[in-house]
């Protein structure tokens, strides 16, 4: 799956989200969620350690495990939405909105797991996008795994200083406070450093980057992308009719 062209992966995720909201609930959203779940389960196929910098698949063993981790991440991320929906709405609305939101979350988590930011940059630059714009897209995709890795390092550092993130609610809240501040401050500091580094390495406004290894864009994949667009338009027309 990671060998698919980045635009195909983006189109799949976008189409799933669009269809989840266009098709009638709950069955339409349940269908898109089922597709998203299957994609998430298969997200480990072809994924090698480090193939997707910072992705949830890095360092995992091959097989089902990466897919299960992606699926679990999606479920854990979507769970609070279900809670709030249940508090605010009746059961049918909760199910309808919950399935749609979970489809969105699962699609994005799957996308982050399978789409290597470097490949996206190469594909966008090859398609004529400016390097700065491509980098902005790719950096957004890689932000969550990068922050996760940084948070893990801070937790380990705090553990070395005797602060345990385990135990009752009190210790966990204290640990969260000790994590949040350094995480935010270091992220802000790194933004400055990274801006300087990127400038010094030629990533300036208007830069026309040379694609080093643009991913192959096969005719079949282009056809699939157009088919997805057509499917979304058809669903929209059907719903408006």
């Amino acid at each position, binding site marked *: 799956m990671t060998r698919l062209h980045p635009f195909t992966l983006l189109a799949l995720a976008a189409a799933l989200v669009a269809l989840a909201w266009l098709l009638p609930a709950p069955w339409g959203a349940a269908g898109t969620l089922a597709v998203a779940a299957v994609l998430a389960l298969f997200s480990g196929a072809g994924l090698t350690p480090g193939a997707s*910098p910072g992705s949830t698949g890095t360092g995992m063993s091959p097989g089902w495990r990466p897919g299960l981790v992606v699926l679990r991440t999606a479920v854990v991320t979507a769970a609070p939405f279900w809670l709030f929906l249940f508090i605010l709405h009746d059961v049918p609305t909760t199910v309808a909105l919950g399935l749609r939101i979970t489809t969105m979350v699962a699609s994005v988590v799957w996308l982050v797991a399978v789409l290597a930011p*470097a490949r996206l940059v190469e594909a966008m630059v090859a398609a004529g996008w400016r390097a700065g714009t491509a980098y902005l897209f790719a950096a957004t995709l*890689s932000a969550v795994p990068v922050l996760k890795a940084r948070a893990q390092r801070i937790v380990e550092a705090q553990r070395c200083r005797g602060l345990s993130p385990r135990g009752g609610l009190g210790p966990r809240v204290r640990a969260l406070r000790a994590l949040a501040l350094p995480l935010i401050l270091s992220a802000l500091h*790194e933004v400055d450093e990274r801006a300087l580094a990127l400038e010094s390495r*030629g990533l300036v406004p208007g*830069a026309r*980057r*040379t694609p080093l*290894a643009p991913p192959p864009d096969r005719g079949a994949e282009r056809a699939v992308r157009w088919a997805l667009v057509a499917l979304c338009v058809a669903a929209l027309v059907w719903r408006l009719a």
Partner: protein
Amino acid sequence: MTRLSLEHVSFWYPATDTPALADVSLEVAGGEVVALVGAVGAGASTLLLVAADLAPRVVGGRLEGAVDFRGRGNGEGGRGIVLPTPWTQVSGMAFTVWDEVAFGPANLGWPREQITRHVDRALARLEIAALRDREPATLSGGELQRVIIAGILAMDPALVLFDEPTAELDPAGARMLWRLVRSLAAEGKAVIVATNDLDALPDVADRVVWLEQGRAKKIGPPALLAEDALCAAGLGTAVAVVWRAGGLPRPYPLTVDDAVRLWRHR
């Protein structure tokens, strides 16, 4: 040929009243290595950012005075800066070390063959050709530092600015780096380096700039590092500082060889 000229340059970071650089004037020619020495906060890193045209353009703040660079902006024939923290300079967009080094040249829009030639040469110069297929995230700090330096050199800048380039390197790596600095100067590039590796400077630097509280307190040959004032400020070479601490008479020796010579002639 003068590559960089600073005339009465002062610089203030955003929301500060005290200048980080105060009335600094300096000229650096092609083929010259200029070393910036000073205590923490003396202004060496700021001077490099100003010379690289990153302050105030990217950093913000206010600049007074004139900065004149004779080159072609950033990249090829332009300015390249190696910042002190390699892990924040990784593009995050590379699968391999080769891709990481090629990140800058690719951003310059060079043809693929030119990128390949420059990247391969930079990898060889930094003695990291064996790492070319490794993922950058798996590298040690020293290896990553070499990769970042290779990434800047692959862009073929005419002015190279190093901020504490040996901080992540082991002694062998530091020696390699200093040899590289001299070879860059031999090619006609202008090099400015901010470093605390004072013992390396007699063999590397053509001139030394002593910065204190943002001012260029003294500019001169590397022999400056054996002067009493610099030794008193903790900025002398180890040999000079030990000689002075031992109460031995001036002039203080700059290197071990100088010390041996002086000792034999006592």
